[in-house]
């Protein structure tokens, strides 16, 4: 389990680095998506129980993984997809307006 949590933290820090270090809007969106995936992974791993069955009860069971984080992960996946669509659309608009994707140049043009 510890390896899973470590990979969550590594993915989160990679996404944070991508957001902070790069100036390209597309790369920033990719970083936001990496961070979001790491948090979904955290939800799924947090609900896991060793030797637990899937939360679809078709036969008698001994132990079931926690179904609540999975429902929350589904929520966050859907919202993340729609937020990504909105961000990409705004990037298209910005690129059409300024002709660049670099956030420094976009800020400079506006004064």
């Amino acid at each position, binding site marked *: *389990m*510890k390896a899973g*949590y*470590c990979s969550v*933290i*590594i993915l*989160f*820090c990679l996404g*944070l*680095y991508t957001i*902070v*270090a790069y100036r390209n809007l597309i790369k920033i969106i990719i970083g936001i998506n990496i961070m979001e995936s790491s948090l979904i992974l955290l939800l799924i*791993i*947090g609900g*896991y*129980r*060793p030797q637990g069955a*899937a*939360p*679809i*009860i*078709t036969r008698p069971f001994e132990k*079931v993984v*926690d*179904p*609540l984080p*999975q*429902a*929350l992960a*589904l*929520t966050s*996946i*859907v*919202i993340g*997809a*729609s*937020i990504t*669509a*909105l961000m*990409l*659309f705004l990037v*298209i*608009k910005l690129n059409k307006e300024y002709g660049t994707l670099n956030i420094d140049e976009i800020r400079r043009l506006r004064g």
Partner: protein
Amino acid sequence: MRKGYIVVLILILATLLMINLVPVLSNFNNLNSLATSSQHYIEHGIEETGSINLVTSILLDYRGFDTLGETIVIFIVVSTITVLAVPNLGYRNDNICSPIVKQSISMIIPFLYLLGFYLIAYGHLSPGGGFTGGVLIAITFILLAVIFGVGYIKAEARRELISRSLIENLAALGFVISGMVGIAAGYNFLSSGQLGLSFGSPGNLVSGGLIPIFNLMIGIKIGAGMSVIFSHLIKEE
């Protein structure tokens, strides 16, 4: 120079998080008992909601408000994109793909539709549900647009887009109205298990009260909404 500072800071953050957070979180995994709400969902979920897929029963019965909020988020995104986008409807790319790709995609598309509606219809019995099936239906629209191009004449294209947006809005309205059934029967909004109308025994296709209807509405809404988003993005020149 600047990137070097950032790398050092992120590394410090990562080590701090690993030292402090990982032992706490992995203790959490070895607990024998779940939280009381999860325990309740696992023990009483089937008899209270009639759906053997516990994730669906949480998503559409116990926490129906969450799902309503989700659909509202997608609704807002679709509305924003449709208001802000300037659709350039004369777009056409016919000869990008070879005939092999076109033939194989046109053979796959009916099965994708079937899989999408299967996932929606069996959402309370197996993995899947309205969101997954809706995304699959939207994928068929996206495949058609990418492979065969989106060359319509203007009026026809606009009519088609408007009809898809209308389908999305009607499905959202249908979701809210089928949630109102709970109020009409004297229970909470968006409740299906409390009504006591599980039409069949758990595990059958017709079971689970209002959950299949919610799944159908969400599936139609997600499919129409995602395809509207994609059409506006691809037609925005």
